[in-house]
């Protein structure tokens, strides 16, 4: 790591630390869910009677947000746009971590940029919704605003680098490649990039300790992931067997 500036060195260390918190924090949460027993069968019925059916049900929750769609169309529109565009933006960012860049990632480049615009817009929409709808305002707290502001700011700083203060993509890429190959190089002296990276690291650290763990938790929701076969198969409660 010789030849790294103090600034670059501290960012490299922070990035590894943030990534570790994100990965191990989320893994610890998921592990906690996995080892906690589900004593009784509590699927929200009508529920599928086969595990294939449950897989379909989970898929429609994860890819279509089907329950939310039933619940509130306006929230669904905002929430769905937010998640899909976020996923696309993250996918597009693989171009900074992979060499050579796979064709599919290159193809996602241009739509990824527009997804970034939509992501910022969706974050704004969801934020306004939290303030403007009385019912939602009542249930919103600092944590809810913070998550939206954080992700919205990440999108905004990214867009600024794309459209206004263009970043030197080549040096950004070499910096990120240095990190993922564990042979770090100096980071580009680009204030907007530094802010962008700081916000992303903040998100990674915040993630496992916040409501954002819904990303892992949804797979363990007993009302959605259980098979409705109570009479056919005896479900055993491990702590009362």
């Amino acid at each position, binding site marked *: 790591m010789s030849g790294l500036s103090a600034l670059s060195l501290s960012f490299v260390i922070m990035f590894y630390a943030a990534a570790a918190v994100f990965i191990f924090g989320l893994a610890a949460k998921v592990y906690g869910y996995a080892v906690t027993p589900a004593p009784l069968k509590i699927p929200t019925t009508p529920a599928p009677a086969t595990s294939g059916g449950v897989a379909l049900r989970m898929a429609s929750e994860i890819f279509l947000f089907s329950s939310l769609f039933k619940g509130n169309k306006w929230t669904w529109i905002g929430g769905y746009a937010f998640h899909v565009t976020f996923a696309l933006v993250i996918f597009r960012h693989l171009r900074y971590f992979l060499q050579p860049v796979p064709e599919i990632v290159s193809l996602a480049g241009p739509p990824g940029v527009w997804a970034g615009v939509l992501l910022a817009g969706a974050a704004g929409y969801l934020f306004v919704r939290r303030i403007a709808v009385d019912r939602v305002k009542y249930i919103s707290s*600092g944590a809810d605003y913070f998550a939206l502001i954080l992700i919205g700011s990440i999108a905004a700083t990214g867009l600024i680098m794309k459209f206004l203060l263009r970043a030197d993509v080549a040096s950004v890429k070499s910096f990120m490649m240095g990190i993922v190959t564990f042979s770090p190089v100096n980071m580009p002296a680009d204030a907007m990039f530094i802010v962008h990276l700081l916000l992303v690291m903040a998100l990674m650290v915040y993630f496992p*300790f916040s409501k954002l763990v819904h990303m892992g938790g949804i797979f363990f929701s007993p009302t959605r992931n259980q098979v409705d076969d109570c009479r056919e198969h005896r479900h055993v409660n491990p702590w009362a067997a």
Partner: protein
Amino acid sequence: MGELLGKYRSLKVFLDICVKCGACADKCHYYLGTGDPNNMPVARQELMRKVYRKHFTPAGKLFPGLSRAEDLTEDVMEQWYRYYHQCSQCRRCSVFCPYGIDTAEISMAAREIMDSVGIGQKYCNEILGKVNSIGNNLGINKAALGNTLEFVEEDVKETTGVDVRYPLDEKGAEVLLIAPSADFFSEPHIQGFTGYGKVFHEAGVSWTVSSYASEFANFGMFIGNYGVMQKVARRIKDAALDLGVKRIVVGECGHAWRVAYSFWNTLIGPFDFLDPKHRNPTHICEYSLDLIKRGGLKLDKSANDSLTVTFHDSCNVARGSRMGDMPGGQFEVPRDLIKAMCNNYVEMNEDTIKEVTYCCGGGGGLLTDELMDLRVKGVLPRANALHDVMQNKGVNTMATICAICKAQFTKVLPYYGIPMETVASVHQLVSNAIVLGGKKGV
């Protein structure tokens, strides 16, 4: 709370992953009826989450102010008592939640925590006392139960001229019938009970009621205690073993069907001592409909011609259990049965039935006079939907398959100008339409 978090994955996951999207907010009948923002499911959950954050999350420990984290002080406990007893555990919110978060799981855990420090709810605990000492929630002793069954026999003889038996504690009977004890006691419940007996009579099957386990309802679920729920359920298994029956058929009760269908196998199973040919337990609606499909009942639909019927899906049946072999059978089986009994059937607004049915407002251990104001407000969405079909479609009867629904509706619908006679048991319609002596032994 730490202990419960280690025992219930539902609680652990649900406390973490709510994003407060608000999809549930306007789905609770108590919120719609009272307008109290703390009755939004997400806000009700928040009462527990703020204590959870204080003790189980780094943000809550480090910055309790920023993250709205609080200790379980007496004030907070008072709010818990108030709002966790304004949840009927009907699970309507869980249908709309993108993560399937079920407020019932949270209010059960809250009640369990309150019970553990001696802040129990009088109504549920008195009832549990009675079921453990006498065998049913209403405290009907064996002699009174026998009298009731005799009375029903005489009544059927008088009205139909046929001897239909309503046996008690008969060893060696094929079927053990477990009914909610309200079926021995109240109107319109007892009309439904009369119907069960006629169905068994026509099927030519021997059956019996047990005086030891004369209760289908299981308030252990309402107080959220696994052990109590298991103990109450155990009486039924013991009675079945003692009487040597081949199958268990259960009567019209919503939460009890959830306990029986979804939990019995875990709590008191396996049921390998019963005849594996049958689904165990069998719901009386499944039993009657099967019999009709096999040509085992002779019916005269015109006996119900004065009625225009609608059906109220009971919350615990709709969202916590199933009938028949297909997902959603709990919607089709009772409807098919009703339609086989009458010529005039009408559905209420589709936003108020089946999967998204509204609770009657009296479930979850709230069916007590102390909470009458809440019960009247909680029935509002159902009362509106019913009123609509009464005005526009000529409905004069709302059939349902839950003892709590029946008791709640007959008491609170009159506040909305709907006569209590509107409420009916599904097997009351069966009882009306059956032509006794029509067929035997199919």
